[in-house]
């Protein structure tokens, strides 16, 4: 194939995934945490599509599309929760959400 090998794409995918993970692990604002999860999913998507291209197989792309939908749904629910929390005057800081512990 012309252009870089699949490996390069996968590298990018992996980098995205890693960055997303880092985001989830260090960020305290739930919104940004959600965004980071999106990045992880996108990394996975990129991997899927790269593989699909590499294997000349459509399943990967389908998978990717499905993932988009799922990601969207997760975001919807997540945002809903954030709104609900916000309505309870809860500061948007996941570190403050620790009434359940031990």
């Amino acid at each position, binding site marked *: 194939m012309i252009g870089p090998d699949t490996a390069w794409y996968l590298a990018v995918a992996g980098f995205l995934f890693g960055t997303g993970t880092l985001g989830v692990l260090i960020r305290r604002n739930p919104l940004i945490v959600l965004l980071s999860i999106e990045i992880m999913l996108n990394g996975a998507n990129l991997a899927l599509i790269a593989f699909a291209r590499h294997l000349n197989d459509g*399943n990967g792309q389908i998978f990717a599309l499905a993932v988009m939908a799922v990601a969207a749904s997760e975001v919807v629910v997540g945002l809903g929760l954030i709104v609900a929390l916000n309505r309870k005057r809860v500061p948007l800081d996941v570190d403050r959400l620790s009434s359940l*512990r031990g």
Partner: protein
Amino acid sequence: MIAAVQSFFARPHIDWFALAPVNTLLAAAALALLSAVLVPRRARKPVAATLSALGYAVAFGFAVALYVKSAHGHGVVADAFRRDRLTELAGIIVAGSGLLATAISYRERGRGDHVGEYYALLAAAGAGMLFFVGANNLMTLFLALEWFSISLYILCAIDRDRLGGLEAALKYLVVGGFGSAILLFGAALVYGATGAIGLPEIAAAGKEHDTLLLFGLAMIVAGLGFKASAAPFHMWTPDVYEGAPTPVTAFMSAATKTVALVVALRVLVTAFPGDADVWTVAVAVIAVCSLAIGNLAALVQKGVKRMLAYSSVSHAGFMLIAVSANSDLGGRALLYYLVPYAAMSLGSFAVVAARERELGVPVTFENMAGFGWERPLLGISMWAFMLGFAGFPLTGGFVGKFYAFAAAYRHGWTWLVIVGVIATLVSLYYYLGLVRAMFMRRTEDLQLAPRTDVRAEPARLLGGSPPRDALLQTAVVACLVVTVGSFFAMQPLIDLAKHASASLPF
């Protein structure tokens, strides 16, 4: 032209019977949802609850019928879904749990708003699980996972005014999203390594010990372990179980664990037989972690729900022992164990719910004092459930543990048996501790919450002790019957499990 279209769309044959349980529940969900809009507020709750109950009952019936008729498993709808006895046995357990969960929920869901949605989501979650256990390729697997997970996220937060619920839901959502992202990436890697997403095809690709494959496998194991709340992927469990409404917790603890473990078994055995030498060890290690962490943490809990949550972590360990055996006996052990386990956890959470309702505060060991004598039926049932968790004879829990250990021994892992035994010993402390609280403590200092009329808006106090909850008690009795009955009449159950696990390529 038509022919061309026909050839263009080679529509796969659809085995509606195989999908019947799922569809039934979806229908029930849809109707319940409609009831939320169409039925007047007063009648909404009974209608929606009945719909969900009906859905589960019918799904249960379908699952049984399918179990009988699916001696030889096969994939349906372009192999996206697998119709075999494993699927259907899991389906039976899930449907049963859903039915009981509906019964338990009935009084809980007093508040007028969202009662329709609640039952709709309950049914939808069940449908997702039913689909999940049948998923035959990574895509459907992932999608079904998200399907019931999202339903559960919402169910956790269904009381938008309970901060605990919201917190639990957010934690569940974020950690769950994180976990499923990992699962997804693993799936992608596996797909890349083998070029297939269908479970059998993955095995057929014959890429044993391929680096990408193993990497993906690791991530998939993690993702499934997360759903089964096995240590060290378990940390969401206590918080979510504590924060979620108790009936939801009951449903989660019974059904989610069931499907997660069944799917884990199916995926590992069907898709990765070549790497068994790797994943058996990994699963065994995870099992040990779960046993250790779950039991130790449960020792020091004050809240009963949290204790039960940790105990469910440790039980994930016990059942993973069976999975790690990677043998027919192991599958049998797991599938048998799931039946009494589901009953016990549903029942125990139901009892907690009952106590919660008469106290109006979170249930702790302290305020369980004297419960056994005040409510003999619930008390004795709880006693039985605890003994079952602790693996005492006269309950199915004993036979389950016995089979799991037997499988481990057959696999040559006596050390795993020893670990399990020690874990059981530790677990006795808190299980019997609850019995002790219920039966051996005095109850003078105990305060029953004033009874509230839940229909009134806003709820208004009536005073007096809460009414006995016939539905809940029926559910508890049903659980009790299963828990104890599975010990005495275990041959039939074992046969069920045997046939079910026979549909896996051991």
